[in-house]
């Protein structure tokens, strides 16, 4: 059995991902290129009984000149023979309806002298636009095989597979001779590096600093060589592109014929754009679509999420009942199982959001959203593409941050990631709902407006405003890493491909569970440990105390158990930390009990409510938990001031704290996964906690 490596490359929107899906189906996996945030999509394909292929889907790029990190990846994989993904065969996917621009990239790849084959896609769209292509002539002119495929409908895949099986030769001639542009430099680089192709040498001259495969000595030599000949890089690159187009134009004349009267695909798109990009209807439709997406991850996802929650509770209960009561069981049930539940519960939201994103991208609508929103978002240091993550953040920051992958510009993306958790997510709702009743009476303003509703709305607006404000500040602080442009193709409108949508949904859920899951489990176990263990004999003391008391018993068994639980939590490490940080949170109006809840609710904001019920030992007394906790909290008197703990000032301060603080380990974990470092999640946690502290301090001191 032989194994070969195939790389798929091509312009964005050329149908590369569809072809990848058509070739590999579900036998694909998403990894990462070492140490970089670029997804590495690989798949497996059996070509024949003797021949297996690993297919890698390289990031789409318009030319070989890399600017962004993902373009550097494509560049390195193709030029660096030591790169583990360096292909034996390159399949260049070209969009027939956009042949001229696509041929530029094709011609560059041909000149690298790697065995290549062109998969000519979207011939159907070209035909609708009145463009007929003579594929045979095109293959002759380019010097490489050209295969017709229709990736959407899975046509031509068989031909492509068969073509790959036959040995694909290295292109014989250069499409464009670059040697005359700078003969000394090209010869010099060939001597230093041993590469054979003139064009590869030319590319090395342009980008040697960022190519990973050369050692310091080689790079030094290249540097000297370029200085000696005063290599005018930008000028030569421009000349190279012009030379390519000079050769592409006559080829297009020979190989294609254009019926000018037919521009069906483009005309239809232009017509739809008149509506979707209309100053009034355009924004209305945009609001409607985004509201639907928001509804989906906010409301629809709640059903499967509740079911998952209930399922895990049932499992925990069942295990608790049937396993011997010991430390291992406790770890398994309260630490590990709770952690796994905390991961799985995100899957409905992630799948729904990415289902929608996939549809919006497939149809071509997503680029229109950028077109509508770019000017507004640019003012605060983000781009039109930040709109969807921010709106999704209103439901949950975890899938929202995963969806920032679509933002190519590194700085725009980092800023979007940094501010998304400030949007008021659904996990804040139970916390707000609990606290709001301590501030506002259940009354209506002017008979119609629910006061509680108004406060809630205010909190949402506060989240919006703060995220835009922070984005504005970060725009000034964060330095751009790379040159980047807005320039973006507006693809023609097409029907979504449900197969692709399904694959994206599954893949994103998998990535989240595998990558972000580890951190979530770890933190979950740490939090379990902090809340379940106390220093020294603290826990056994409590148990003994109540064991002695029980015979006297005026309290029922469950009530006693609740009290034991509560006292244990107070004596646990988490309780100790709560006591320890009390002086720091006193100025915010918080006591040590709230301190404990702040620590445990780092798992997820809504845990706050559960912790409160444990602390005030109302855990299992009433069916209507929520009201029980609320009533109990209302009675809580501060031992020092002799006033209710949950005064309006404290409750308000606590709400503000939850509005701004990064009380969510899943977000931390997903930010780490998306930025590939601990740096950004830590900065984010620091600034959000700082912001929350300062704002709560201000609020408490003003209102107390």
């Amino acid at each position, binding site marked *: 059995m032989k194994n070969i490596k195939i790389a798929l490359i091509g312009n964005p929107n050329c149908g590369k991902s569809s072809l990848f899906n058509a070739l590999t189906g579900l036998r694909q996996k998403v990894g990462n290129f070492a140490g970089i945030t670029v997804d590495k999509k690989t798949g497996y394909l059996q070509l024949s009984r003797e021949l297996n292929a690993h297919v890698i889907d390289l990031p789409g790029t318009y030319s070989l000149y890399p600017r962004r990190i993902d373009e550097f990846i494509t560049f390195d994989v193709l030029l660096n023979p030591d790169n583990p993904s360096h292909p034996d065969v390159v399949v260049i996917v070209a969009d027939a309806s956009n042949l001229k621009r696509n041929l530029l990239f094709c011609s560059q790849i041909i000149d690298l002298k790697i065995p290549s084959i062109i998969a000519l896609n979207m011939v159907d769209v070209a035909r609708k636009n009145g463009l007929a292509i003579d594929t045979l002539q095109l293959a002759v002119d380019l010097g490489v095989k050209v295969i017709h495929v229709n990736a959407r409908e899975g046509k031509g895949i068989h031909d492509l597979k068969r073509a790959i099986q036959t040995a694909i030769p290295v292109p014989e001639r250069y499409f464009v001779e670059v040697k005359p542009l700078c003969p000394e430099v090209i010869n010099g680089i060939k001597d230093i590096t041993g590469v054979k192709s003139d064009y590869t040498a030319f590319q090395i001259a342009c980008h040697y600093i960022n190519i990973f495969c050369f050692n310091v000595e080689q790079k030094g030599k290249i540097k000297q060589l370029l200085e000696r000949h005063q290599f005018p890089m930008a000028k030569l690159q*421009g000349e190279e592109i*012009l030379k390519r187009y000079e050769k592409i134009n006559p080829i297009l004349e020979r190989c294609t014929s254009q019926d000018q009267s037919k521009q069906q695909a483009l005309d239809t798109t232009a017509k739809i*754009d008149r509506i979707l990009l209309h100053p009034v209807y355009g924004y209305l439709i945009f609001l409607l679509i985004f509201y639907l997406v928001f509804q989906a991850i906010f409301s629809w996802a709640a059903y499967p999420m509740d079911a998952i929650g209930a399922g895990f509770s049932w499992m925990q209960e069942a295990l608790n009942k049937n396993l011997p009561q010991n430390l291992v069981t406790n770890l398994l049930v309260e630490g590990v199982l709770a952690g796994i539940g905390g991961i799985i519960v995100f899957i409905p939201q992630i799948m729904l959001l990415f289902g929608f994103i996939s549809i919006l991208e497939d149809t071509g609508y997503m680029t229109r959203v950028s077109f509508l929103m770019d000017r507004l978002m640019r003012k605060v240091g983000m781009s039109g593409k930040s709109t969807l993550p921010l709106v999704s953040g209103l439901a949950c920051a975890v899938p929202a941050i995963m969806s920032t992958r679509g933002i190519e510009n590194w700085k725009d993306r980092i800023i979007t990631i940094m501010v998304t958790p400030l949007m008021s997510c659904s996990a804040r709702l139970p916390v707000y709902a609990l606290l709001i009743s301590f501030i506002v009476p259940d009354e209506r303003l002017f008979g119609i407006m629910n006061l509680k509703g108004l406060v809630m709305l205010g909190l949402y607006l506060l989240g919006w405003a703060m995220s835009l404000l922070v984005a504005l500040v970060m725009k000034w602080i964060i330095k751009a890493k790379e040159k980047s442009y807005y320039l*973006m*193709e*507006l693809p023609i409108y097409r029907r979504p491909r449900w197969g692709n949508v399904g694959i994206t949904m599954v893949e994103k859920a998998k990535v989240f569970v595998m990558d972000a899951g580890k951190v979530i489990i770890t933190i979950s176990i740490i939090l379990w440990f902090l809340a379940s263990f106390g220093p020294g004999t603290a826990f056994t003391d409590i148990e003994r105390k109540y064991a002695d008391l029980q015979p006297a018993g005026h309290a029922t068994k469950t009530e006693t158990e609740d009290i034991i639980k509560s006292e244990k939590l107070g004596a646990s490490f988490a309780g100790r930390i709560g006591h320890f940080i009390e002086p720091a949170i006193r100025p915010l109006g918080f006591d040590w009990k709230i301190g404990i809840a702040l620590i445990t609710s780092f798992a997820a904001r809504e845990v706050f409510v559960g912790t409160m019920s444990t602390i005030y030992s109302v855990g299992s007394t009433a069916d209507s938990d929520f009201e029980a906790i609320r009533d109990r909290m209302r009675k809580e008197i501060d031992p020092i001031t002799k006033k209710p703990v949950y005064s309006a000032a404290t409750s308000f301060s606590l709400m503000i704290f939850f509005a701004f603080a990064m009380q969510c380990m899943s977000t931390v974990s997903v930010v780490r996964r998306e930025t590939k470092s601990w740096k950004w999640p830590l900065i984010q946690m620091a600034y959000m906690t700082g912001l929350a502290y300062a704002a709560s301090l201000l609020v408490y001191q003003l209102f107390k």
Partner: protein
Amino acid sequence: MKQPHSVVPLGKLRAGETAVIVDLEKGDLALKLMEMGLLPGEKIFVDMVAPLGDPISIKIGNYLLSLRKEEANAVLVRR
């Protein structure tokens, strides 16, 4: 006032106008624009201006390209 044969930056054109590219301002952006098919001599049609006034979308060759006005201004065109 419309001047029929004046050379202007692309960003100055209004929706519905047709023009021919004369030159590109030198630099990395020019390279990127050329990659996207904006070459001297090519005909472009300004398809739309975004409702907020920026970016714009143009038809070049057989496709629609959207770009910000500041980027478009690196392209000099003759109407």
